[in-house]
């Protein structure tokens, strides 16, 4: 006995995707043309599980090459900032070009296109983040931090902190301390 089958590939793909996403309890919208909009944030772990199961149906989640390179730039910058005591006076542009094997101009344009901010700005954000951590967790003084992060002066760091966050390093410290006290009082 032979059966003759007729397929609607479009509907078939939609059905598979819809079933799988529902199985994982992921709120979503299928946009067609190989695009799905996830209406919630997925952890890397859940995304990987979903990706593996879709692979069984020969469906692959395409990652954008540009995003991958941008992620590499970010990792390199974070690495550079958080190890600034060892990378003395290395220029960021030279460091990135060396590490990633592209010209700084190319990296810089790509970065701005994908992240809506510039590499320079991102480095400042990371430095200020690191400063915050050092103030709160390691109780370092601003002078010590300025030295550790290769700032030319404390004033420079202090101004950059204020420009980036809108508050001074000392207000920042006061607010976080008070906030911790408040949370502690609530849980006691």
């Amino acid at each position, binding site marked *: 006995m032979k059966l003759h089958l007729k397929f609607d590939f479009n509907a078939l793909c939609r059905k598979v995707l819809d079933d799988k996403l529902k199985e994982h309890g992921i709120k979503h919208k299928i946009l067609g043309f190989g695009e799905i909009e996830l209406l919630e944030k997925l952890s890397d772990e859940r995304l990987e599980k979903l990706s593996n199961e879709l692979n069984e149906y020969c469906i692959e989640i395409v990652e954008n090459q540009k995003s991958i390179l941008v992620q590499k730039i970010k990792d390199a910058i974070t690495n550079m900032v958080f190890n600034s005591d060892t990378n003395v006076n290395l220029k960021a542009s030279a460091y990135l070009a060396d590490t990633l094997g592209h010209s700084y101009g190319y990296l810089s344009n790509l970065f701005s296109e994908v992240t809506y901010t510039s590499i320079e700005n991102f480095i400042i954000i990371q430095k200020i983040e690191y400063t915050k951590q050092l103030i709160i967790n390691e109780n370092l003084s601003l002078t010590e931090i300025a030295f550790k992060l290769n700032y030319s002066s404390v004033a420079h760091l202090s101004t950059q902190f204020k420009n980036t966050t809108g508050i001074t390093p000392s207000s920042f410290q006061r607010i976080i301390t008070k*906030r911790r006290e408040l949370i502690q009082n609530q849980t006691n």
Partner: protein
Amino acid sequence: MQEDYINIILADDDADDRMFFTDAFEELKITTKVKTFNDGVELMDYLHTDDAVFPNVLFLDLNMPRKSGLECLTEIKQSDKFNDMAIAIYSTSASEEDIEKTFVMGANIYIKKPNDFKTLKKVLQEVITINWQYHTNGLNKDNFLLRL
């Protein structure tokens, strides 16, 4: 893999402010989905529904009838399910006392409402850009304080 838009919610009882706010977001480079509520009660009712989509940034006016921004902030900070949301206070007040109080209570951003549209756009652009960095780079939200 990243989402290509940012979800925004504003709770503000002033209709003009809501309109300026929505218009400003429409003109920004980053794509946003903006939802507005007329006061704190409407906002919290929505956030407590099962299919509520939590915003990346929630903008709260401080002075609203029925339920104020401060009351919303307190309520939100009591529940872990809202942990991923950045909270921005969006107020006409610029008193140091208000600012510090809301930060201590858990707000991430404090914006004094600008008087003109151009500044508003600039300010919102800055908020969204920095928030985007926190959102996409796994920066520690507990240390996220921004005053504009």
